[in-house]
């Protein structure tokens, strides 16, 4: 989540800006914790399928690492494209 996504805070009185800013921070924390959970679930589901041992084998570990890295790169790319589209939509509004 990009803070710029969330609109202009400059028009609010200072005490409300502070509160709004806290709210945004909290949403960002929640969002990144959720992202972490979702990433773990997805990479586990895609990479781990046998349960004959209780530790990850080398292959599963490599798969999880690549999956997580790919997901993060993907997520960053989506964020950039999304920001561009938001920008475009905001410009049209004015």
């Amino acid at each position, binding site marked *: *989540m990009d803070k710029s996504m969330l609109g202009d805070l400059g028009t609010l009185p200072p005490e409300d800006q502070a509160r*709004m800013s806290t709210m945004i921070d909290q*949403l960002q924390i929640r969002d990144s914790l959720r992202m972490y959970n979702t990433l773990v679930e997805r990479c586990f589901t895609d990479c781990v399928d046998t349960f004959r041992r209780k530790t990850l084998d080398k292959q599963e570990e490599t798969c999880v690492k690549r999956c997580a890295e*790919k997901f993060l790169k*993907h997520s960053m790319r989506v964020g950039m494209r999304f920001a561009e589209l938001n920008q475009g939509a905001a410009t049209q509004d004015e």
Partner: protein
Amino acid sequence: MAANNNTPNALEKEQIFGMAEKEMEYRVELFNKLTHTCFAKCVEKRYKESELNMGENSCIDRCVSKYWQVTNLVGQLLGSGRPPM
């Protein structure tokens, strides 16, 4: 909170902040659904490498663009008058 008198009262303020919060939650959720949907549609599940290849990258760009259009299209159908973003 109790100091100024010509500002909105506590309940009204709750409503304003509540609305803003719901709006932000909506945007975050839109972003997350888009991210997960396009990952599922574009990224090779065998994870042979940790880089996104060219095909995946262009698929992601187009996927985001099309998802955006679907969001707008559905927004028009719902006839809400409000922009989906």
